[in-house]
């Protein structure tokens, strides 16, 4: 990570705070209108998708219904749920958009997400050993993890994680790797497991039991469509999220360098540990504006549709302080993610012989 003096860090903090303050002062009807429009779009797609699904014996209808339901889940998870739970719309004082009570359309409970994502991941971003989102304790994505033979197969793990992403995210808080190491007991995790089964059961009941059964004669079609919709959402959200922190130049940090860190240092870590990707309006909407991962990590609680508007200012601050701003096309960024997963599946001495496989590292 770029070394900055305390003074420089404090200047960085002021520069970024100024951007934030300007947005917060301007929040109002425009933002309320935006999120309500997105919510209407979600409701329309979900109702439309579910209504069309029983007629899925006509192949184009099946495709349209599955796509509509899949996209509705993506929008609900990414642009509505994730962002609402960050408190981006708390200022509206609308009880159905309140961060602490919102419950989203996925296996992971809102409660668990607020703990593991909002708190752990956004506080300890990319600190190896503290940010359990870094590789999800499943993938080796930096040198800080010692290579072990099972890592050579981690590409398969990655594919499985993507396919079953909502279940993986739902089980994240179980901390199975710490249970295996004996650091926590399964007993301590019982309350979490209870919630997990309740919410997971609810999601499975809805998509794999209830909606297929009420359309009994065409149950297999509805079941297949619902599985398809969940799969579309799983693959897309996992891909977007992997592009946020695991690209080639996204940096990782050690616990030692982040001890007693200042707000300025936290900002610096968010800027250098995250990566954006470019794309059209729809790409940004469907990624919940996590395509502006850098802006999101610097300001997790301002409405995400504002990120494109402040991106230029954040880049200017980065240029001023000589901090890299990691962005590129979706294809390029995702390519480097796949490269990272592959590179770290190799033993260090093999990898070090291939110059093309050098990665952003803890300094």
């Amino acid at each position: 990570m770029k070394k900055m003096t305390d003074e420089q860090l404090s200047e960085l903090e002021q520069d970024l705070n100024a951007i934030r303050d300007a947005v917060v002062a301007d929040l109002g009807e425009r933002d309320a209108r935006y999120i309500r429009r997105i919510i209407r779009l979600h409701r329309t797609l979900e109702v439309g998708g579910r209504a069309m699904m029983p007629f899925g014996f006509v192949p184009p209808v099946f495709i349209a219904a599955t796509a509509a339901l899949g996209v509705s889940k993506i929008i609900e998870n990414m642009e509505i749920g994730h962002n609402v739970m960050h408190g981006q719309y708390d200022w509206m004082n609308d009880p159905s958009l309140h961060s602490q009570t919102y419950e989203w359309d996925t296996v992971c409970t809102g409660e668990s997400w607020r703990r593991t994502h909002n708190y752990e991941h956004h506080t300890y971003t990319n600190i190896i050993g503290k940010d359990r989102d870094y590789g999800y304790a499943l993938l080796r994505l930096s040198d800080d993890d010692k290579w072990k033979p099972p890592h050579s197969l981690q590409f398969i793990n990655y594919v499985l994680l993507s396919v079953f992403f909502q279940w993986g995210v739902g089980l994240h808080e179980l901390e199975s790797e710490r249970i295996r190491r004996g650091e926590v007991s399964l007993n301590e995790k019982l309350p979490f497991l209870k919630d997990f089964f309740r919410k997971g059961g609810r999601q499975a009941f809805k998509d794999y039991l209830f909606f297929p059964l009420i359309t009994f004669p065409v149950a297999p079609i509805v079941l297949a469509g619902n599985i398809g919709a969940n799969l579309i959402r799983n693959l897309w959200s996992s891909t977007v999220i992997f592009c946020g922190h695991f690209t080639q130049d996204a940096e990782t940090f050690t616990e030692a360098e982040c001890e007693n860190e200042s707000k300025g240092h936290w900002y610096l870590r968010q800027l250098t540990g995250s990566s954006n990707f470019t794309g059209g309006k729809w790409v940004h909407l469907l990624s919940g504006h996590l395509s502006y991962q850098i802006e999101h990590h610097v300001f997790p609680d301002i409405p995400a549709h504002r990120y494109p508007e402040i991106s230029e200012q954040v880049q200017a601050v980065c240029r001023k302080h000589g901090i890299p701003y990691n962005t590129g096309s979706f294809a390029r960024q995702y390519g480097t993610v796949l490269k990272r997963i592959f590179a770290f599946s190799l033993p260090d001495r093999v990898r070090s012989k291939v110059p093309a496989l050098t990665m952003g590292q803890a300094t």
Partner: protein
Amino acid sequence: MLARDNQSTALQWLGKQLFNREDPAAFFDPLLERVNPMWIQEYTPARVEQILQETSDTKTFVLKPARRWQGFEAGQHVNICIEIDGIRRNRTFSLSSSPILWQTQRLISLTIKRLPGGLVTNWLHDHLDVGAVLGLGEAFGDFTVPDPARPVLFIAGGSGITPVLSQLETMAAQDYRAPVSLLYYVRTSEDVIAGEKLEALAARYPALSLSIIPTHDEASPRYLSDGDLAKVPGLNGRQIFLCGPKGLMDLAGELLQSRGVRERDIHCTFFSAPQANLENQALGGQVQFAQSNIEVGSEGDANLLEIAEAAGLTPRHGCRMGICHQCSCRKTSGTVINRLTGQKSGPGEENVQLCVSVPQGPVSIDV
């Protein structure tokens, strides 16, 4: 009836499974609202049917709530919610119409005076038009007419007349069989709210004796006096209802006490945030917002809601005056003083209203 309840519980359960929310019916609100805002499920919608200019700064809004609204008793109030610049605002107002109007025509009315600098009252006056839809809560409050009938004295000031209007109309319609007196204090004769209505009531309802007293028509102010009370026959046998600004309420309280009126015969309702006298209390302290992992110090009489907002938090809230309970939260430890009553809480875990709780020493809140 029970079967229907069972059915609705089962539906409710199913709705929660399908839509991941405690109020599943509201899932469709964003779409229904577009078709007809009166179909909103999250709160009871009410359409503005008519707006009457009462005085230069007071309007009566006649509303038609959706049919599921539960009705009210004369003297009760409601929370309304509106959205101003993207932010939902909840405020409490007294119902000024009689329940009979609700029962016969499904209409209610709120009579609202502009408060200087008041965000919501001014917005209602300037932007709420006929045809607009606002959110309505269920009625609450115990500022209600005694049953069986007993002699009554109302002392009202300014827009504090609103719940009294509802009560008087109801009493007249039911031919309430006991003497009823109203002492109504207004700033000037121009500021009388519903003057014609009051005169008409007095004309057709002989039990009512009406005195409208302008306080500032003359050079020297003419406030409620012991003489006014002396003119009320059988004062000590009456149920007394007070509604008005704090100065009037305090004065009335003192005068009534010196005339030996028993405390339990006096009923008050506030229409602006009352303040207990907290001057001699040591206030402020370290406030820990446990869920947000934030700890801040506070000084003086700042309430927990203000402290939280100053710390960048956005807890759910409503009226900001201790009425609507939207901001009720779990206090896990520490002592707070209730701004309205001056009462001290226990040190343990309990629900507190953030907007009227002032910390006294360290406090931990589940926000």
